């Protein structure tokens, strides 16, 4: 794709698309991780249905996984900034 031929409005469109696709990929990754992790934590003996205590567990697990993601994200970003400051 030759970006130099894009007019500005087209370029904004391409940038938006890139952002959207990355956000989508991020959400998909998160979704997949949550399913995997929370299945492991909450469904220890798969029965004939997903019973209510399992459903509660999954809901809670999902919330905690996002809490964890945000905390890890913040901690990691802070650390990266500190390391970058040490280099310069």
């Amino acid at each position, binding site marked *: 794709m030759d*970006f*130099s*031929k*894009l007019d*500005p409005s087209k*370029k904004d469109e*391409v*940038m938006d698309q*890139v*952002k959207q696709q*990355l*956000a989508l*990929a*991020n*959400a998909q*990754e*998160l979704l997949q*991780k949550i399913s995997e*992790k*929370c299945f492991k*934590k*909450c469904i220890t003996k798969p029965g004939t249905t997903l019973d209510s205590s399992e459903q509660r*567990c999954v*809901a*809670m*697990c*999902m*919330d*905690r*996984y*996002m*809490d*964890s*993601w*945000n*905390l*890890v*994200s*913040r*901690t*990691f*970003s802070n*650390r*990266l900034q500190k*390391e970058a400051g040490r280099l310069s």
Partner: protein
Amino acid sequence: MSYDTGFGASSFGKPPPSSFGAPPPGGQGQVDSEMKSFLEMESQKAQLQQQIHKLNDVCWDLCVDKPREKMDGRTETCLCNCVDRFVDTSLLVAGRFQNLINKHQ
């Protein structure tokens, strides 16, 4: 219990300053370099997010026992320590690896 997915770019603090907000006057080369720096920035952001997914995967397994109503302080401390020790480990390994390379040159 909210499903507030606060995991977007906003949770990294500031979105990158839009130095490319206003298009520079004309010039095809400039358009090109603007797109280039945008893509580099986005690619870096994607890499960072990928690293966070990986870290969270590892640290979740180490720190979180049974999911509870709220994240307790002990778990939070464990997660923070886990991230910092992981970075320490990466730096240590990288340093030793560099030494090995230097020795064999």
